[in-house]
């Protein structure tokens, strides 16, 4: 069984239209298909770990978005399903995001730890 780490860097791509992040979605789908998956949030995607984000209330024309994407909740479900979620600490800090605002269940990793993390996986997919 291939062990695959998915690095997510570009967030909020069509998430209102899709009801989820496509990269996280396919990662979860691959897990359900039998893959051993992991997620690393880096760059702007570290915002997916912010616990208080709320995308509700959007109406376009006559169409309310009734089930918007809550990436932090999707990531928690993924972690519960056995997909470890890690977040690059430096990318959080340089954006001025308070560490205490993140979902506490996700592991913070430093840039210096990434090579070791990558070595734990057979494949690393940088989306």
């Amino acid at each position, binding site marked *: 069984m291939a062990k695959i780490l998915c690095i997510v860097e570009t967030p*909020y*791509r*069509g*998430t*209102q*239209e*899709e*009801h*989820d992040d*496509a990269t996280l*979605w396919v990662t*979860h*789908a691959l897990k*359900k298909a039998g893959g051993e998956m992991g997620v690393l949030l880096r760059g702007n995607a570290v915002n997916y770990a912010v616990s208080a984000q709320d995308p509700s209330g*959007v*109406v*376009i*024309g*006559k*169409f309310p*978005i*009734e*089930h918007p994407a809550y990436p932090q909740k999707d990531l928690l479900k993924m972690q519960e399903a056995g997909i470890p979620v890690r977040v690059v600490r430096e990318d959080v800090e340089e954006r001025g995001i308070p560490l205490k605002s993140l979902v506490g269940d996700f592991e913070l990793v430093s840039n210096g730890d990434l090579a070791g993390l990558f070595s734990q996986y057979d494949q690393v997919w940088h989306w």
Partner: protein
Amino acid sequence: MAKTLTISIMDPPYESANSTTSMRIIDTAIRKGMNVNVFAFEGAVSLTVKDQKPHPNPVHGTSVEEEKHPLTKDLVAGLFELAKEKGVKLDWVNCGLCVDERGAGNWIDGPRRGGPPDLYKWVEESDATLVVPTK
């Protein structure tokens, strides 16, 4: 006299926050009583394709009905409806060359076929023009 906004978009549906943001800007302009011209080219011509279908979400464990997937063709149809209700004009041009190369010519009611000359004409006539680039 109502002001007119021209907006040029090029991202395909379901792949970028640019599409959602653009539609929210169009929505807001209409609600404020502005006429809006939309020039959709490249991937954005697929926003209005009639054959879009909602789907269940096996990862969410939801049926088609539960998922209530917002299709971009429905969002755009709602913008046309809103414009009619507000008494302003929404003119939506899909670039014909972009449509042909994608085979994306079966649209909902509302958009019309055109090209860059339409955009240029609108730029001359509008109070403001906003281009939304893709990345």
